[in-house]
């Protein structure tokens, strides 16, 4: 497999998803609420170990750590590797360079062990774009109305057709003929049956997100150990927690 080494956050997703499936909602909450020692929870260290093992056992394409997302994804589309971690937009992004008969499919992140709190079909699911209507805008109702149109079933259906990407509106894919990639995404969402989760710290605490990205990049090149990874990220989380200038959120 390969990964988008230039932007290590792509590799965070399988790592954090594995940890969330093993530790369940409580693990995710502890991380997002900046609880002391949250990043030292056993499932997180075990997930980091699993990522380090990918590198250690030689499953990663050499040089991946310096590839941009387009370069890594091109290597995957050319068949140099079998697996790449990415979001469900991948099929649309690779449209021009996917060979005929490539028929990509998505698979959920594997379970760390049989003792996982969430089923193996559980998915990390989050909308990838944010939309904001400012409270003090001149026409906030107009803005909200626009969002209503944007997220109507009709608009979502058209969005799926044009971009072969999963829309955030439930049931928008019903009755559509789906491509291989998008079809597998829909099947995975159906199989998850509500067992979805998402971390919030990325949008709440951007400096913490950067610390995780940097640490995971170092982990995948085996310049740090899984224990050092959790140590480093915990330190960054503690720094954010102690910073009175940062607005804190709870879930």
């Amino acid at each position, binding site marked *: 497999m390969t990964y988008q*080494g*230039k*932007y*290590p956050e792509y590799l965070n997703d399988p790592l954090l998803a594995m940890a969330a499936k093993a530790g369940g909602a409580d693990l995710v909450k502890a991380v997002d609420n900046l609880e002391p020692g949250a990043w030292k929870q056993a499932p997180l260290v075990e997930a980091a170990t699993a990522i380090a093992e990918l590198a250690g056992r030689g499953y990663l*394409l*050499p*040089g991946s*750590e*310096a*590839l*941009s997302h387009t*370069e890594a994804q091109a*290597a995957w589309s050319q068949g140099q590797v079998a697996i790449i971690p990415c979001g469900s937009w991948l099929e649309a992004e690779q449209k021009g360079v996917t060979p005929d008969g490539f028929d990509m499919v998505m698979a959920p992140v594997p379970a760390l062990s049989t003792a996982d709190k969430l089923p193996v079909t559980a998915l990390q699911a989050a909308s990838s774009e944010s939309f904001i209507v400012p409270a*003090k805008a001149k026409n906030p109702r107009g803005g909200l109305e626009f969002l209503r149109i944007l997220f109507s079933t009709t608009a979502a259906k058209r969005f799926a057709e044009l971009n072969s990407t999963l829309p955030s509106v439930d049931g928008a894919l019903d009755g559509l003929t789906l491509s291989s990639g998008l079809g597998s995404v829909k099947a995975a969402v159906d199989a998850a049956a509500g067992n979805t989760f998402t971390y919030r710290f990325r949008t709440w605490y*951007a*400096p913490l997100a*950067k610390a995780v*990205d*940097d640490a995971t*990049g*170092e982990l995948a*090149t085996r*310049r740090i150990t899984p224990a050092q990874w959790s140590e480093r990220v915990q330190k960054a989380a503690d720094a954010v927690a102690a910073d009175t*200038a940062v607005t804190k959120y709870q879930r």
Partner: protein
Amino acid sequence: MTGHRHGTYRFLAGAILPALALYAVFVLSPYAQAFYLSLTDWTGVSGDVGLVGFDNFRRLAGDPLFLAALRNNGVMLVVVPVVTIALGLLLAALVSFGGRRGTAIGGARFYQIAYFFPQLLSLPIIAVLWQFVYHPNDGLLNGLLRAAGLGGLARSWLGDPHLALAAVMAVLVWSSVGFYMVLFAAAMSAIPTEIVEAATLDGAGRLATLWRVVIPLLRDNVQVAFVYLGVLALDGFAVVQIMTVGPGGPDNATEVIGLGLYRNAFTYGKFGYAAAMGVALFFLTLALAVVALRAGRRERVELA
């Protein structure tokens, strides 16, 4: 007589004032705003701006990313000007005096134009091209090394924290050396041939002539080059942002002040803090220019 003078002043004022107004609006006022914002906690989108005094500057001193940026910019400040000027002088000397008996070599114009080419490309394009060159598997650099049987030297240039900053600096040097070669070559052509001939007659070899006669006569040009290249080395934002892992990595190995400024302003929504970085960078650049111009002050040699 006085009427004539008044007309002159009016004309001068008419010529200068529009330029001054533009300068005030587009240069001075942004500076003033940046200084003001550096004392606030402005988020960049909110209408609320709170004054926080020198808090942002106190934070800078304890920000590991900013300190990493200072260190990397410091290394660049030492390496980039020295290497670029040395290469520029060497290439200019080879072109200007590399021919028989210290004359210009054949095809000197061609070399000058060829070396000047990178100057015609914008820095972002250069960074994108060099990202391809450094590609660990399909890149030109590793490809050449492998073709030459030196595959053992092939590296993940931008993926290795020990090599990434050097790889960035190499791009900065590559992109500037042609300009300084042309600058130095032009200055060398202004040196009267008798001086070089006299040195040769006195038995000075080519290196001695270059080191003891030509370069001392180029002192002013070298000094200005130091200031310009120093400013370039204190920046480095475009190349780092486009080319490096992270960007700024791996693991902050290529973090520069400009990148931290950009990230804090546009990713973290901390415009006040970012402005403080900008103010710090402003004073660093100013200090560099003052030191470089003072250190090189000496009596001038009048040629001709």
